[in-house]
């Protein structure tokens, strides 16, 4: 099964956080969020840390791929 990947590129604040939060509430154990700006990365990191989830990121070209796991 491939990891769920949420494409939040180009979505304005707070959409990336809303989508990530929904994935958490739906009970996904691990998923990725792809964003295209530093603000969205900071916001999703804050959300993940608040929910005590493991979170890290890597860059793919000009995009940022954030991995979140329980």
């Amino acid at each position, binding site marked *: 099964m491939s990891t*769920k990947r949420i494409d939040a590129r180009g*979505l*304005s604040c707070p*959409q990336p956080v809303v*989508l990530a939060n929904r994935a958490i509430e739906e009970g996904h154990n691990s998923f990725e969020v792809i964003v295209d*700006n*530093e603000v969205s990365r*900071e916001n999703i990191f804050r959300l993940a840390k608040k929910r005590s989830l493991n979170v890290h990121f890597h860059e793919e070209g000009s995009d940022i791929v954030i991995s979140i796991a329980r």
Partner: protein
Amino acid sequence: MLIHFVMDDKNLHIGGIPMSEFFASRKGIILAGGVIGILAPLLQYLGNPPNMGICVACMERDIAGAIGLHRADVVQYIRPEIIGFVLGAFLSSLIFREHKPRGGSAPLIRFFLGIFAMIGALVFLGCPWRALLRLSGGDGNAILGILGLTTGITIGVILLKNGYNLGRSYTQKTFSGWIFPALMLGLLLMLVYRVEFSAGGPIFFSVKGPGAMHAPLWMSTAAGILIGIIAQRSRFCTMGAIRDVVLIRDYHLISGVGALLIAAFGLNLILGQFHPGFEGQPIAHTNHVWNFSGMVLSGLAFVLAGGCPGRQLFLAGEGDMDAGIFALGMIIGAGIAHNFALASSPKGVAAFGPAAVITGLIFCLIIGLTMREKSIT
């Protein structure tokens, strides 16, 4: 709070945190709110209108008047603070490599959200920043405004949770991101040289009323640029502060709002600018229903557009053309609000203000319920 600045071989460290991460930290947002909370009462002390050291909505309204979009002769001045916000954020985003021209997410809708956000703010008489500053100056009517703002934002959060989304923006050509800062630079030049395009104006400059009250030009500009830089780094946003508490119980941004309130309250006490009460407050009225309802409209419009008026200016400086459209909507909205008897005055609510607020609420609800993107994965 004592903050230590230490330079090691690579990075400037502030309070033990590398600067690249400092402004994203709790301390960073508190510093940002604190700086705004200190500079606003200082600007008032230096000449800006009472409880209006900084007000993004009022100051955009004054700019609208200065260029003749409305003829309320007591509120016409090109406010350099607004110019500074955009240029500071522009410089900061260039320096920190965050300048990113982007746009194309429902611009016309954002334009109208800007118009209605301004109408709501001018029925209350202030943006969220001024609501906080009014409270810190003792104006009890601000409590109604802040309650209204929170209510509007809560309605917006419900819409967000139900899938409200204006769609994606896309990367634009480099020069796109320079247009809004260039516009601000043009306004600054017109202010400095006081250009008169025809006898008697435009440019219009108030000779009485709040529009005639202003701190020295260079101080206002410098304060604006400093705030622009710090706010761009820290992502300071008053609407986002309340929204994040309601939406995900996150208290990051609101700690900046708290810092603003406390700093402004303290400085107002020191400068003798704290006068508690409801009656006779400067540039304010006591109609509780419409103080509350005006800010419900503004709060809702801010959520739907993704930022408070200040944040929209900082985003516009970073190259966000959609935020620029929202800000232009606010300036046009100020023209409409004064030309069509929608904007309140210290005497009270204007004849058509309530009808405009209701119209705006209906518009925002329709947008919030119909602009949905069910499956973004």
